């Protein structure tokens, strides 16, 4: 075989092993297209990318491991405040290492809380995650000398990314590409994880807990590991938030943010990797458009959408897409 044929064969083997589909390149192409064709929407788009990353981290625990949590913003906020406080109090404002620190701190909190909380399930686990997050929020409020409390920490500034690309306060250009790059890297990590044997065992745990116990799989350990990884990723999203906005406040730790990302993920479809993308984009774009047109009525529109999707889809928007695809294929299968 010629070098070219070998190369193609290798590429195809890689694609097969990771089950890469051609359309998986689309989101990233779309992301780049936004940069070139919608330059005045980059502030909104940056927030969107950050939320997608956050939703992706939630999908790991919710979609793949079946842990329903209302407190994931604890890790988002932990990452956000780590970056903020390092910048404001320790003068440490190099962006990439800041993100690493955010991931570490958030991951540590995830590990600690996961060890304690993942003994429980259902409503109890839900309330425990919520309480943990709220306690963190209250601590941030009480420590307002360091955290800025309710009003937040203004005036943060960060060094240029890789020393080359300064943060763009008004147009968010460099922020957007930076966030997109970070999202891409994190997505690769999540994708590899999900298709690995570890990831498959998570799906087993989600689908049939008893059987997993019966086959002797180390269930608790797996849950805590995935919870920690997810927390670290949420922390990265939070750190990005602080860097992109040059600002952090208590809302990063709040129930609004935690509940919002949960809704977006369910809306898009959980356990499908791309549900985070679809859900976040659908929710935030719709919210943005409706809020401009009818400020008071956007909540009505979003509410009706959620009700409709819940009633008619079995797993969010991607669930509808799946069902449609199956129905389209079925007649041909005769």
């Amino acid at each position, binding site marked *: 075989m010629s070098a070219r044929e070998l190369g193609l064969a290798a590429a195809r083997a890689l694609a097969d092993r990771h089950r890469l589909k051609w359309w998986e390149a689309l989101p990233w192409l779309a992301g780049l297209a936004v940069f070139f064709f919608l330059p005045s929407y980059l*502030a909104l788009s940056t927030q969107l990318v950050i939320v997608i990353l956050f939703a992706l981290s939630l999908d790991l625990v919710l979609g793949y491991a079946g842990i329903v949590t209302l407190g994931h913003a604890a890790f988002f906020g932990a990452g956000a405040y780590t970056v903020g406080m390092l910048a404001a109090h320790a003068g440490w404002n190099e962006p990439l290492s800041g993100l690493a620190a955010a991931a570490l701190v958030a991951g540590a909190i995830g590990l600690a809380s996961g060890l304690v909380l993942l003994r429980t399930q259902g409503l109890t686990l839900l309330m425990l995650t919520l309480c943990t997050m709220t306690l963190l929020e209250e601590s941030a*409020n009480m420590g307002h000398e360091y955290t800025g*409390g*309710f009003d937040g920490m203004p005036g943060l500034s960060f060094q240029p990314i890789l020393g080359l690309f300064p943060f763009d306060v*008004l147009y968010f250009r460099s922020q957007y590409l930076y966030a997109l790059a970070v999202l891409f890297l994190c997505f690769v990590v999540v994708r590899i994880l999900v298709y690995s044997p570890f990831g498959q065992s998570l799906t087993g745990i989600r689908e049939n807990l008893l059987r997993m116990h019966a086959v002797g799989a180390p269930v608790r350990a797996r849950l805590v590991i995935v919870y920690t990884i997810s927390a670290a990723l949420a922390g990265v999203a939070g750190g990005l938030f602080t860097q992109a*906005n040059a600002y952090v406040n208590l809302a990063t730790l*709040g129930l609004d943010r935690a509940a919002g990302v949960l809704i977006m993920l369910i809306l898009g479809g959980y356990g499908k990797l791309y549900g985070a993308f679809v859900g976040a984009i659908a929710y935030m774009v719709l919210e943005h458009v409706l809020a401009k047109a009818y400020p008071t009525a*956007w909540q009505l529109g979003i509410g009706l959408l959620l009700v409709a999707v819940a009633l008619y889809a079995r797993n969010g928007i991607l669930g509808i897409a799946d069902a449609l695809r199956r129905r389209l294929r079925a007649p041909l299968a005769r």
Partner: protein
Amino acid sequence: MMTTRSRLPQVLAAGVLAAFAVGAQAQTVKVGVKLTYTGIGAEFAQQIDRGMQMFMKLNPEAFGSCKIEIVKRDGKNPGGADSKIAVQELITQDKVDLVTGIIYSGNAIATAPLVDAAKKPMIIMNAGTAWITNLSPMIARVSFSMWHAGHAMGDAAAKTLKAKTAVVGYSDFPPGKDSLEAFKTAFEAAGGKVIDEIPMGGPAQVPDFTPFFQRAKDKKPDVFFVFVPAGDHAVGVVKTYAALGMRQAGIKLIGPGDITQDFKLQAMGKDAVGLITMHHYHADLDNPANKRLVAAWRKEYGADTTPDFMGIQGYDGMAAIAHVARTLNCKIDPDKAMAALKGWKFADSPRGPIMIDPVTRDVVMNEYLSELVMKDGRLYQKTIGTIQSVKDMCKELKVGRCGK
């Protein structure tokens, strides 16, 4: 021979006329308004919005030949991130000349870097954290700082009300802490003593005030100074004060006017009689501009509506914008706009004469000490003292962050 030379005057005349025609075309000043039209701040947004509309309705000539185009955006919540997007889009997409609105201090803080980088004048119509105007030379404020009322009240509590001891209850977030510090600074400078400071929950929801008020009652102070965010918190405060029988125990309830916000006032009922507040505005102020505004407001929005301090801030903010537009002949240059705002005096404000301090770009205005009484079957604010030309003492005394 009729040469071009003899036609020159005609051409010149035509040219001059043409120039006049172009200059006389009304230029549009685009004003970006960012308010929290949905969510917990919706009522306040409505008040400010109405205040703006009222100014434009009652003073159409204030804008000179300029046309005003208003672009509204929803900030949605005090969290900062959504307001940042809204203001960014006002600047980059809608290309506004000025930004205004801003109810919550958190949102002001989040959006300050944007207006600073883009060099767009921002006229704040509410956000009251004292050091906000220090965040950028592009920021001017027509509303208030927590220190205006807090400091003046501390002073008045010691001197006019002759109080020796005070307990301070405050909502646990920066405006509350500002208020506490402002009151304490003035009260103790005038010889009083603050014997307890009680944080009373957060601004996001109205807590049950009973435990906090019980603790205050047990300390037996002369006055109980309370700061809570305007709105439902204030109603809760008044009801709890009455429910615990604190007035009978000889403890006066005092505070900034946030606790007696006009459009919530009548809902408080008889329990509120005797409350003493210090504020830059209440709807019962007796001056011609205010009487005119209140009448017009009731006619436009309903007989049981009333302007309140937020409405006035919208009104005065619009007056400031009109002044800028007119002074600059409808072409808004950022530095010239800020220069026009510095030292601007507005004698006809419904709250009395106001001025924008040329150094701090914050408002200088009267503060009114008022007592709530019953008159003709409704609650009425009786002005018992006026302090003129009050500045923001935080920046004046360079306390903490205000000094930076």
